[in-house]
């Protein structure tokens, strides 16, 4: 499907236009600023839905391609395109962005700057999922860091400045390895190219050492973003210190960029790399699953608990990615990315709702608030169940696919690695149920929490789409899987080269 107009370019740069427009609005007119940014974000969502509607899921070909010469001096072109791997990410990104913008309506500090940075961030995020040229990809990948730095550093919690610079430095540290890998691949390819599609074609012809080295470099960059244990230490700081909307974005979109980068770049481009590193990556995945769950179990702070649960849940993605011969595993990884985006996004949102009212996130401080806040409690319990993989919710589908796929791949040897990962499911149930029990059940402190009000309509509207999608995908996952199937089949073929 091609349009007479460059729909991907419009989708990427619409938020940027919104950001520029915001600069001209008087900074005291908070509502005008809020609604303008929500409007631009909404149109962006519509655009991605149009892309989704017209996307041909029967083929693994890149669609809506745009190719323009950009900087011939370094061999870089402006190439955009989407396939079954990027389309779900595009829709997820624009949906989560809109929700995060609406949930940010209660921001009162430096409103104009906040939404300007937010829209810049959205521009960068969508760009990452649509770029097919290495240089362009890298530019979008880095552009996001700047608004993110400000958003955490200005509107975050008490240790915001530390968390912001830690996030910035950590991610940049990862990116530099990607840059070296990109340059190595550029100069190894003949003729020199930065086009991802061309490099995927010729990737297997590179020597073993080049493939291993480039793969390792890419892995560091992406693993920091995911984050894979032991590269995860920026995550608790950034997630906890960030304002609610940014925690949502971090969990739902930014972490996915790591796994997306692996699926899009290093896995298909450097098949000898993944064949060589498959088992270590699976081990790292399992460590993340169990370690993340154990640390979550020990958390006293609600937001930290959700943050560490991300480490654990992204571990399933890594385990699936290690099982590179199985289409089921790849689909499980993609499904987990989407499902974790919805569920953890919602959990961060709900934690933020409670924090706004109670001004504390300490699990022990609450108890029995289920009676006082029935709607809130219902939502929180629902997403808690989704997070621990209750059948009927999207989390169950993705974890099931991950386990089937990775058992399939590792059956002959190393099956016990996968078996260990199942332990993670039990631990997840433990920390989620413990959290629900301590916060919502038990004695209610009327004196302290009598003033709490239930979730309001704006917040409910924000969380509703996430809830609906979590249940729909849990009951009827077929459309999502169909959407990605052709691309993932192709991916597995590429990795078998």
């Amino acid at each position, binding site marked *: 499907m091609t349009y007479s107009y460059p729909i991907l370019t419009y989708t990427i740069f619409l938020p940027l236009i919104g950001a520029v427009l915001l600069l001209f609005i008087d900074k005291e007119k908070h509502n005008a600023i809020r609604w303008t940014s929500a409007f631009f974000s909404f149109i962006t969502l519509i655009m991605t839905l149009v892309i989704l509607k017209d996307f041909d899921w029967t083929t693994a070909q890149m669609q809506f391609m745009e190719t323009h010469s950009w900087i011939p001096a370094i061999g870089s072109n402006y190439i955009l395109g989407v396939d079954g791997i990027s389309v779900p990410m595009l829709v997820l990104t624009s949906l989560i962005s809109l929700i995060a913008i609406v949930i940010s309506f209660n921001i009162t500090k430096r409103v104009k700057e906040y939404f300007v940075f937010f829209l810049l961030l959205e521009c960068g995020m969508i760009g990452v999922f649509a770029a097919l040229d290495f240089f362009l990809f890298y530019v979008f990948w880095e552009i996001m860091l700047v608004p993110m730095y400000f958003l955490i550093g200005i509107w975050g919690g008490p240790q915001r400045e530390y968390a912001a610079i830690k996030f910035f430095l950590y991610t*940049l540290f990862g990116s530099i390895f990607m840059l070296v890998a990109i340059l190595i691949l550029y100069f190894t390819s003949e003729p020199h190219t930065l086009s991802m599609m061309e490099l995927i074609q010729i990737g297997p012809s590179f020597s073993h050492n080049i493939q291993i080295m480039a793969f390792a470099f890419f892995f560091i960059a992406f693993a920091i973003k995911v984050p894979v244990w032991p590269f995860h230490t920026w995550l608790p700081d950034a997630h906890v210190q960030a304002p609610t909307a940014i925690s949502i974005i971090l969990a739902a979109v930014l972490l996915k960029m790591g796994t997306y980068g692996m699926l899009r770049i290093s896995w298909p481009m450097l098949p000898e790399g993944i064949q060589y590193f498959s088992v270590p990556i699976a081990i790292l995945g399992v460590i993340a699953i169990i370690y993340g769950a154990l640390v979550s179990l020990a958390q006293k702070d609600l937001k930290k608990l959700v943050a560490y649960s991300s480490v654990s849940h992204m571990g399933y993605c890594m385990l699936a990615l290690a099982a590179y011969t199985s289409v089921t595993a790849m689909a499980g990884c993609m499904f987990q990315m989407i499902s974790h985006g919805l569920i953890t996004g919602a959990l961060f949102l709900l934690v933020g709702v409670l924090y706004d009212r109670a001004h504390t996130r300490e699990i022990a401080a609450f108890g029995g608030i289920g009676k006082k806040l029935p709607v809130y409690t219902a939502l929180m319990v629902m997403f808690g169940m989704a997070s621990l993989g209750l059948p009927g919710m999207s989390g169950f589908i993705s974890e099931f696919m991950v386990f089937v796929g990775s058992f399939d791949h590792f059956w002959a040897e190393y099956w016990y690695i996968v078996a260990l990962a199942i332990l993670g499911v039990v631990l997840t149930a433990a920390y989620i149920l413990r959290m629900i029990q301590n916060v919502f059940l038990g004695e209610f402190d009327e004196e302290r929490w009598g003033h709490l009000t239930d979730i309001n309509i704006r917040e409910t509207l924000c969380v509703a789409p996430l809830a609906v999608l979590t249940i729909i995908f849990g009951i009827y996952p077929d459309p999502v899987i169909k959407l990605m199937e052709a691309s993932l089949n192709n991916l597995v073929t590429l990795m078998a080269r």
Partner: protein
Amino acid sequence: MINITPLIPELFLLVMAIVVLMLDLFSSRRTVVVPAYVSMAAVIITGFLVFKFGGDAVRWGSNAIFVADSFSQFFKVIILGAAFLAIGSSFGTADRMTHHRGEFFALLLFSTVGMMFLVSAKELILLYVGLELTTIPLFVLVAYQKTNRASSEAGLKYLIIGAASSAILLYGLSLLYGYTGTTYLNEIAQKTAVYFLSHGFIPNAEGTTDLVGMGPAFSVALMMIIAGLTFKLAIVPFHMWAPDVYEGAPTPITAFLSVGSKAAGLAAIIRIFDGMLYAFSHDTMPNDSWGTMMAVLAAVTMVAGNIIAIRQTNIKRMLAYSSIAQAGYILIGVIAASKLGVASCGFYMFAYMFANMGAFAIVGLYAEKTGKKNISDFAGLSKTSPIIAALMTMFMLSLAGIPPLAGFMAKYYIFAAAIEAGYTWLVILALLMSVVSLYYYANVVRIMYMVDSDNKHHIIPSFPAGLVLALTGIGVLLFGILPQSILDMAYKTASSFIF
């Protein structure tokens, strides 16, 4: 008869410098506006002349002594750009001086002429004279605020170290003359290469040949030339003068020093090493490879510059160490010794000009308004002067190499050249150090945006300062997103070299 048309831009600027000097003598001395605007106009016209009279060379016999090739044109644009921006941000500084206000601009133009000679010189004596013409006016300019002790100290320090480094350079050049019997760069290039080919191999016991060097004197000559020229670029360990001089000098002069004289010194290094001594660029020549020597210097410079910059509290000292580190990155392009390497040096300098001149312009403006020079004094600037703060953020992030700004494109290009030349380790080190550098660049941003203060200073730039900020801001953004035209020009400059 010697054809002097290629010299017209330099001669024009020289005349204009004298005109500015005279103007001061005859005009009322109440303001600096007249000599300043005349100087700016002279710089712009010289820029046009550079392109109009390019492509030719001044010859002595069959040897070129002064070339107006695309390489020198490119660097002259950077030098003139730096001069223009420095003059534009000098209005406030010069206005507050009590003495010799007109001479300030004349000296700046004289120094610019020297730099232009330096980048065009194809003969050792001319090169040396160009270097002296560059630095002697700068000695005076650095010490211009003579009632200010820091400024006087800086001037004296710069004079002594400048003179010492020039002497070392001259010694190195004379040894080279001793080896070859000529001072023309292209003749030296041929003779050293031929000398190497005829003397470089000696038979050993096994009957095969070993590679040997050119002898100890040649190594000494290389080292002295490297030392002499890297003094000008403030490469570690020849950087000790830079922080004090940068701190003490009037801010526009610091900016000019950190961009203009760096560009000119870089051009001379490229001419001498990538041009004249290309045969000795790589490891094939044991003992005589300047590539290895410089790679070590570049590595040490990046590490020391970036790490020391973290600890600085004075913004000018921080920028001084940052520019030391930046010189380390640029040196990587020289070491690559390839078309891409030379092109990347040019582009890097070009991008660096915008970010650094812009940053210093803001530092100067802020100090004029508030008298404060510490990084922590910038607290709350994002509220009182949001546009200035946004520009400063762009300059800092460009220096740190964050896309889509020009500084990122420049780093990418230089690293590409180094990877192509096989210096992967140097690139990884440079990238690691650029992560370190982000810490102190982002610190300025943090203080402007995230630290609250009761700062009420609303900075309103004067027209010329506003022009400087607008030009540098646009440059940083535009050449980050659409760098192709400049990259093309930079790549063409490499055609002046043999590789």
